[in-house]
């Protein structure tokens, strides 16, 4: 077991280059995807799918945490939450781009894209 080199090696640069390249390529390809028409909201109280073409505001509870979710301009976003973490509030809205909004303390996942389009497992659909 030898101490790693203090100066960056070729292997270091190769690793950094591969990760940056694949990360950027993934982000570019995912942003090129077509906008989602539906989003899946999965919490501890159930799973439901919302239609992103209709602007609406939903109140959702998951794992004892309350959320206000807004659908506006074909995008979905968490606009209010009493979760102590706040990451879900700071995450950008999704819909025009695939992705997900996750709240770890509330065990809530809002997803669009490949996962979000799949209505399998949804308890009900809100038009």
């Amino acid at each position: 077991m030898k101490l790693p080199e203090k100066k960056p090696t070729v292997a270091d640069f190769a690793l950094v280059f591969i990760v940056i390249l694949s990360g950027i390529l993934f982000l570019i390809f995912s942003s090129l995807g077509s906008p989602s028409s539906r989003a899946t909201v999965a919490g501890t109280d159930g799973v439901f799918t919302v239609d992103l073409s209709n602007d609406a505001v939903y109140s959702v509870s998951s794992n004892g945490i309350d959320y206000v979710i807004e659908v506006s301009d074909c995008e979905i976003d968490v606009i209010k939450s009493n979760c102590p973490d706040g990451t879900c509030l700071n995450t950008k809205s999704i819909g025009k781009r695939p992705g997900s909004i996750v709240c770890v303390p509330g065990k809530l996942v809002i997803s669009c894209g490949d996962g979000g389009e799949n209505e399998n497992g949804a308890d009900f659909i809100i038009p």
Partner: protein
Amino acid sequence: MAPTSSSRKTGLVAKGAILLAVSLILSYVEALLPLSRAIPIPGFKLGLANIAVIIAYFSVSPIAAAVISFSRAIVTSLLFSGVTTLIFSFLGAAFSFAVLTVISHIKRPRFGFLGLSVAMALAHNAGQLIGSVIVMKNFSILWYYPALALAAVICGSLTGCALSLLPERIYKRKV
């Protein structure tokens, strides 16, 4: 006067305890920073505590580093984030420690502190995301991995630079 075997062991235990305290302080400092506002990715952290784990791995022993890594994961989860995140932290610590062990034994290609830190950060994020998938039973969380991987490169490079700047005697198994 040369140190005896028992005094050397005591010295290494003391060094391990100091490094555990350092890792907890670094985690506390991280918890104070409003990172989730600047970069809203669940599980995003600077990973400063990895500095203490890597120092312990080379200057004390791999077992001491494992103890520090897992103890820190348990204590910081209970103190700063809650029991829910315990599995994320634990899996993150397990994955990054596994990568540390593998890379430290690889002769070719030879990695430096920068590559080691980046690889550990990537593994930590992978472990955390797998933990999230297990707890939340939702694969959509994996969408975050590319963004987390880019963040891991930046944070891993920072900790790698910090490790490179430390004097070499810190990594020696001397007390």
